[in-house]
């Protein structure tokens, strides 16, 4: 027997396991916003992720401490810009809660209609984007035509489209015009057909299901510990919806189902959103059917800009007009927390007033900011392409994340 000489024996080189680092973002088209993640990769498997946020931080909380109450509404637009009416109305309701104003039933119903329209657009964008990230661009392009219809409704109501600044503290600046109702009716007629088509395209699609089921999942227990809210929590199987738990703006008057998932994965989130869109549509229909007559704003002259003809002819209206425009309205002392079910979770406003013209402190509970921190845990051990999908299905909006 010959023994292999040391010279020709294969050399076994013992190397430590090498990881590679990948910088995903901050401006990457696949992340749909400004998110940076430093990924520690083992081949194509993610070992760890370090998210960096704050790229578009605009100091909303500090800004709010230096502005009169009615001028804070445009700030809230710029948080979750996919559903800015919910942010606006959530803020109006917070101030109304502090002031203790009784809001007319009609205003509450009109608000519900707008908020549900906003929820539809929010979910629609997110679900369409899940489609894009799994390779189905068709749905995205198709659904965006429907989003356009909703934006036209906003335009008819408040004149703006994306950053809406809709309504006022106390109600609306004007009643819905007949044209607005026409557009809402048109949307309600056209949208279900399109949504059904979109749903049929993906719901039982083998490729889509293989791609999304079991991807980016989180257990209910972990989701609760991470203070998830909104669709992400419901997809994990917890039926927490602010609209049902703490009804605001007369949500208790409507019948709707809160869909829940089981695995908390991308597919569940997609399906929960899909069902919520149908529910939102039903809520809008109920609200339109039961819509009471009455004024379209509450009696809060300190916050509600009077009609122009009164400003020119009436001393009192002129004074109020001046005070509102110059931001010289004092607000009673107090501390309130108000939350609404935003497009992606519990959107809370914690307002502390010291009796001045500006808030002493406004804390914004931004749902994205809270649940995005679970992202590294959710993508650990998954493929890079799944990480992209997980992020888009969580509906993380950079504007809200960074405030």
């Amino acid at each position, binding site marked *: 027997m010959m023994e292999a000489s040391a010279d020709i024996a294969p050399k076994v080189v013992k190397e430590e396991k090498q990881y590679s680092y990948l910088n995903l973002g901050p401006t990457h088209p696949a992340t749909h916003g400004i998110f940076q993640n430093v990924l520690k990769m083992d081949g194509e498997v993610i070992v760890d992720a370090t998210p960096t946020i704050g790229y578009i931080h605009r100091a909303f909380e500090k800004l709010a401490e230096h502005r009169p109450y009615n001028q804070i509404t445009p700030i809230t637009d710029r948080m979750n810009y996919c559903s800015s009416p919910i942010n606006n109305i959530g803020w109006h309701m917070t101030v109304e809660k502090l002031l203790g104003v009784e809001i007319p039933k009609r205003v509450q119903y009109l608000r519900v209609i707008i908020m549900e329209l906003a929820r539809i657009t929010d979910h629609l964008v997110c679900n369409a984007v899940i489609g894009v990230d799994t390779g189905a661009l068709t749905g995205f392009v198709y659904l965006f035509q429907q989003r356009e219809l909703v934006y036209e409704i906003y335009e008819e109501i408040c004149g703006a489209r994306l950053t809406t600044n809709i309504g006022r503290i106390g109600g609306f600046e004007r009643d819905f015009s007949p044209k607005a109702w026409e557009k809402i009716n048109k949307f309600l007629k056209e949208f279900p057909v399109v949504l059904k088509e979109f749903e049929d395209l993906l719901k039982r699609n083998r490729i889509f299901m293989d791609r999304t089921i079991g991807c980016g999942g989180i257990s209910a227990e972990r989701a609760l510990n991470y203070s998830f809210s909104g669709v992400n929590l419901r997809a994990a199987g917890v039926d927490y919806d602010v609209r049902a738990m703490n009804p605001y703006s007369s949500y208790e008057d409507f019948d709707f189902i809160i869909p829940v998932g089981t695995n908390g994965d991308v597919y569940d989130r997609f399906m929960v959103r899909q069902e919520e869109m149908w529910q939102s549509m039903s809520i809008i229909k109920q609200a339109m059917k039961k819509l009471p007559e009455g004024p379209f704003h509450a009696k809060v002259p300190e916050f509600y800009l009077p009609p122009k003809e009164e400003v020119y002819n009436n001393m009192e209206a002129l004074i109020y007009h001046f005070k509102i425009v110059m931001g010289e309205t004092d607000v009673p002392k107090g501390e*309130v927390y108000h939350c609404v079910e935003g497009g992606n979770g519990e959107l809370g406003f914690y307002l502390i007033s010291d009796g001045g013209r500006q808030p002493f402190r406004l804390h914004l509970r931004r749902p994205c900011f809270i649940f995005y921190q679970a992202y590294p845990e959710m993508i650990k051990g998954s493929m890079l392409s799944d990480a992209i999908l997980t992020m888009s299905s969580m509906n993380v909006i950079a504007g809200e994340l960074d405030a």
Partner: protein
Amino acid sequence: MMDAAAQEKLISVINEKFEGEIIEAAMDKDFFTLIVKKERIVDIISHLYNHEDTKFQYLTTLFAVHYPDQNQIAMVYQLHNLSTNQRIRLKIFLSADNPTTPTLTTVFSAANWMEREAYDFYGVISQGHPNLIRILNVEDMLIFPMRKEYPLEDQTREDKNDLMFGR
């Protein structure tokens, strides 16, 4: 909303283990608010988390407020029991000169970024936090910008010469 019986119950649950820690307990609009001593806040929250009768297992929010007149920083914790739908608010007051508090990340994973935010904007140091660095502001920022002594715009900046807007 918590009725009087639930409030009594909550106070007795806390007093079971933490007698004398509650400074003040009152209903503030629709929130039951407790002001407690700062030292054992995390133990109290952890007790409320685990106790059979309270089970406040959802952290709604956590943030800081600066009161310059009292030279204090308040930390506000809002907890939620999702099965009974009770919400409470706990408050502690720290000295603004050296605000330190034990970390809540041991109970809630969600507290991680919230505490980082409180540090970033108010300089509240959460002892035992796994990664207490700035979160939204740049790393080399020297101040804690949400404190009341800092104006909205940095007055020392020289790169902005925008006379038209009175800066």
